[in-house]
């Protein structure tokens, strides 16, 4: 064991097995509650899965770290010089310091980027290296990450969790802090802004929620205070980039891209990219927007150029490469090919060009026949192959919940340009293999991760320079502009949350009555609530009238526990989660925690038959409280900007629709059968208390209708929702003009007036058939025009989503 590990190991022994288990449960809860996830491609069932973190950090002492820092700074500087040459004079190719074929055939060599000026002459504003330690203690570089290095956000999240769980150990170990690195990062980005505009708008461009590291994009955007955008949120006008917001187009100064450069502009780069921003490269060329890392920087990411780094380092920097790359041969050179073919069983064979995708081939694992085939392929197309030595990896202890086990590890270290050099994050993302036999470290293949503790030489004075990390995470929403896409999602989040609440309330009203003693009041209540549920489509595809066979309670239970049926509780809840997921960077961490707990509660299997009804009732009780907490937190944690307004519009609109449905299906247009029917409606609308405080126990239809539809003071009435809708819509950007009121404004005003001028006594005046025509007219109008309001809003504000980009059909000749 290395000596600098001993304090940690001593502390862990002192905590003991039980203690560590307890602390670690807490750690996992934190990860789950914070929504730390990693998407696994090719897994249709789950779009994301929990982030695997091991409680025992990797510890590196100050001296060893100094060596790593110096070596990686040198490497970043070197790669930067290489890129500047390849996209400029190309002397390295002319002089054969790098084989021209390697670059000319590389699909990461983006020809349109040649000669495009990059801000401050820097291509790699950020850089990461995957490094590994050999058993003899030497560090090796396994891979370079030069496009949009991922994982710094996960490293930060690992740190947040490990300091919470091992706080006492952490404090006594003099571990260097990560926060300054992110400060430098922010400053570097500010320096890159063209024309040094004050208050520049910086956006983080993500490929979207289906990307493997989307969590990190959202997390970093929030941590650094930048707007998270997708390609569709940006547009290029007159060779400048703009963010499409509700308030109009806002200029963008700097784009932090988290997608491969070739996908960034369908006009000049990959024409099949739907993720990019058409015209972006022209805007960059004109110097109107900066992109980091510079477009084209993916060129030096693959293994083949690494084979030439040692002599390039001597040539360009006049010094030896301080940390070696794993021995690499590009087979396009005859002597390299000869060496590789002689030593195949000791080597890993990889594609030389990234578009020739194949998994690494381990020479040692091939049968004689496979080996022969590979040799033939390599002789025919030698330039397509790169061979690397297999490194023996050192191990670190990993806790498997019983004991510490040795595993191989790879450390990803992050650098950011600072002045003429680079700042190195004192720490990084440590990833471990799943078993000791495995040499593949990959989150895609189920590996785990660790926090990385870099020890300081002395008690660190940097303590005082720093804000505590927990405080740094505060969100500064006031400066964040609202893309139309986000407004759209917030609107739907509001609608789904409200819909779920209504379904829960109706279901609870039914179940609680079923477990009571039988009487006519009870029956009328069940019947009315069941009609509401069935007519609104929450019992699944079959309308109740065609499936009367199953007793109501069975259908309600099925709706609760069967997540597959469309329109059911599970389905609606899934919609809430889906939309919330699209909004991950907009929703407070606390609200996320609640949402994640929801999911846990609902993934528990249905209890055995005799307990089902009571279990379901208490589940629903619990649910209503959690749901209120969720919407409360979401609403309360947002500043009263347009984002909040659209969330509120969604909620109000949905609640009004649900209340209208409640009257329409639960009561209808004639007198109630008995007071049980009216009671259940009041209960569902959470208005029993108000009713009783006003009218005591006497039940009258007109009073109930007044309370549920017309009473603007009752927060559960349709009138209240309409009044709020009008207020919200009044504040929207399109409503500002007094002379040209937009259609949604006029619609909202008309609907509000309709309920304001209605009188309960008039509504229940029967015609010659005993039918309440006036009520029917009002309710029908609301039922038709409320969805219309939703459509009108969509047309006015979210229309961008409708038009999909397409390429010009090329002409043929």
């Amino acid at each position: 064991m290395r000596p600098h590990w001993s304090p940690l190991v001593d502390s862990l022994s002192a905590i003991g097995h039980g203690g560590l288990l307890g602390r670690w449960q807490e750690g996992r809860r934190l990860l789950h509650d914070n929504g730390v996830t990693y998407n696994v491609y090719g897994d249709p069932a789950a779009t994301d899965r929990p982030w695997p973190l091991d409680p025992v950090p990797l510890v590196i002492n100050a001296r060893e770290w100094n060596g790593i820092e110096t070596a990686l700074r040198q490497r970043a500087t070197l790669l930067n010089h290489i890129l500047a040459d390849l996209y400029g004079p190309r002397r390295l190719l002319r002089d054969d310091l790098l084989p021209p074929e390697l670059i000319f055939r590389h699909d990461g060599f983006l020809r349109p980027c040649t000669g495009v000026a990059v801000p401050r002459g820097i291509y790699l504003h950020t850089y990461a290296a995957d490094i590994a330690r050999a058993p003899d203690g030497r560090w090796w570089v396994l891979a370079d990450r030069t496009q949009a290095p991922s994982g710094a956000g996960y490293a930060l999240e690992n740190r947040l969790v490990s300091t919470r769980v091992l706080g006492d150990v952490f404090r006594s170990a003099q571990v260097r802090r990560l926060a300054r690195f992110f400060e430098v990062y922010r400053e570097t980005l500010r320096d890159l802004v063209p024309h040094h505009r004050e208050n520049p708008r910086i956006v983080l461009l993500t490929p979207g929620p289906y990307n493997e590291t989307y969590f990190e994009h959202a997390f970093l955007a929030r941590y650094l205070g930048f707007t998270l955008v997708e390609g569709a949120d940006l547009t290029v006008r007159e060779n400048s980039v703009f963010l499409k917001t509700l308030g109009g187009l806002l200029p963008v100064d700097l784009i932090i891209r988290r997608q491969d450069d070739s996908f960034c502009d369908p006009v000049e780069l990959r024409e099949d990219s739907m993720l990019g921003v058409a015209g972006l490269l022209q805007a960059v060329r004109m110097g109107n927007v900066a992109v980091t890392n510079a477009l084209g920087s993916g060129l030096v990411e693959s293994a083949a150029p690494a084979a030439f780094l040692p002599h390039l380092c001597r040539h360009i920097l006049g010094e030896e490469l301080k940390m070696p790359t794993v021995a690499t041969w590009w087979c396009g050179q005859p002597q390299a090919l000869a060496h590789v073919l002689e030593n195949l069983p000791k080597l890993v064979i990889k594609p030389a060009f990234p578009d020739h995708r194949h998994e690494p081939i381990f020479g040692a694992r091939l049968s004689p026949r496979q080996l022969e085939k590979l040799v033939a392929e390599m002789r025919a197309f030698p330039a397509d192959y790169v061979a690397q030595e297999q490194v023996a990896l050192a191990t670190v202890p990993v806790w498997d919940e019983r004991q510490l086990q040795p595993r191989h590890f790879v450390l990803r270290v992050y650098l950011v340009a600072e002045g003429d050099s680079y700042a190195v994050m004192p720490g990084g993302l440590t990833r471990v293999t799943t078993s000791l036999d495995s040499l593949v470290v990959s989150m895609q293949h189920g590996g785990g991760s660790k926090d990385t503790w870099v020890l300081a030489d002395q008690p660190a004075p940097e303590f005082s320079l720093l804000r505590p990390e927990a405080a740094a995470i505060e969100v500064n929403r006031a400066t964040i502009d609202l893309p139309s896409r986000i407004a759209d999602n917030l609107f739907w989040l509001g609608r789904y949350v409200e819909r779920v609440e209504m379904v829960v309330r109706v279901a609870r009203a039914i179940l609680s009555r079923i477990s009571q003693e039988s009487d006519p009041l009870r029956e009328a209540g069940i019947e009315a609530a069941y009609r509401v549920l069935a007519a609104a489509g929450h019992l699944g595809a079959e309308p109740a009238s065609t499936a009367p066979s199953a007793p109501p309670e069975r259908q309600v239970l099925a709706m609760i526990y069967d997540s597959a049926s469309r329109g059911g509780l599970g389905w609606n809840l899934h919609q809430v989660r889906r939309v919330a997921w699209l909004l991950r960077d907009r929703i407070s961490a606390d609200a996320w925690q609640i949402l994640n707990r929801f999911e846990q509660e609902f993934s528990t299997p249905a209890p055995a038959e005799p307990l089902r009804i009571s279990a379901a009732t208490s589940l629903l009780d619990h649910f209503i409280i959690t749901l209120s907490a969720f919407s409360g937190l979401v609403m309360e944690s947002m500043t009263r900007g347009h984002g909040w307004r659209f969330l509120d519009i969604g909620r109000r609109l949905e609640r009004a629709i649900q209340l209208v449905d409640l009257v329409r299906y639960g009561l209808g247009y004639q007198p109630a059968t008995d007071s049980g029917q009216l009671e259940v409606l009041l209960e569902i609308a959470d208005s029993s208390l108000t009713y009783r405080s006003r009218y005591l126990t006497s039940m009258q239809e007109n009073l109930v209708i007044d309370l549920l539809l017309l009473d603007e003071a009752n927060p559960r009435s349709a009138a209240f929702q309409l009044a709020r809708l009008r207020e919200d819509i009044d504040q929207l950007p399109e409503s500002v003009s007094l002379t040209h009121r937009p259609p949604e404004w006029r619609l909202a005003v008309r609907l509000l007036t309709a309920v304001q001028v209605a009188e309960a006594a008039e509504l229940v005046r029967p015609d010659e058939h005993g039918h309440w025509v006036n009520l029917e007219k009002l309710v029908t109008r609301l039922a038709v025009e409320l969805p219309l309001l939703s459509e009108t809003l969509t047309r006015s504000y979210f229309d961008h989503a409708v038009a999909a980009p397409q390429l010009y059909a090329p002409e043929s000749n």
Partner: protein
Amino acid sequence: MALRVTHTTTYTYSNAVSVSHTEVHLAPRSDRTQTPIEHHLVVDPMPESLIARCDYFGNPVTHFSIHEPHETLVITSTSVVDRHVLEAVHPALTPSWEQVAQEVGKHDTEATFEALEFAYESPRVPLTPAFAAYAAPSFTPGRPLLEAGLDLCHRIFTDFKYDQRATTVTTPIDQVLQKRNGVCQDFAHVMIACMRSRGVPARYVSGYVRSARQFASGQASHAWVSAFCPGFGWLDFDPTNDLMPAGGHVTIAWGRDYSDVPPVQGVALGGGEQDISVDVEVVTQGS
């Protein structure tokens, strides 16, 4: 001799396009075979911005974007070029194709270094063994490059059938080689693949050919091949018409293959179904 080219491209959409970004290779480039005299580009509707520059290969390119809703987009390019008649090269005087490959591999002059880039596979031109095999009878040991090139050009002209319905712009060229039919773009790609698989740099030339009965591709843009020969520069071959372009061709742009120099490319937001029509006219100036 001066040639006047009028090239009109019309896109018609079933729904309005709200935004479009377009890049065009429509202006003739200057080289030893021609001098551009005049060029006008008219875009309807009028673009919000229009910028002309040179692309990576030195071809003139124009970038424009339109931000008003439009159901049709009409791009009209009118150019006049003066074509120069070069002295014919005697095939036997050119170096052997092996020497060419070797010289370029060494790339110790500016010209050979520039040519090197056209010696490798490119997005539309994969170098599968089938092309090397097809090229073999033309590339006999020690044969002067121009002889080999003319022979290859003639064989493609004879072996392949010109058929506009046989291929689309995206048909892979191994399929063209297998089926032996296609249009000028396909023949140019096949010839390029054959030459590169023998180590000879070859580039794709996009342009026009004067409308005359004996030439194919009168009503559209045209494409041919240019191969590098140290000491002689780039030599043009038109496998669609089995000749070396002289006075009747107009060069617009060159690149590794079609994907570097499409006449019109871009992205439109919305639009629904799209329909494209192209009209090209090449006439002798003053006639």
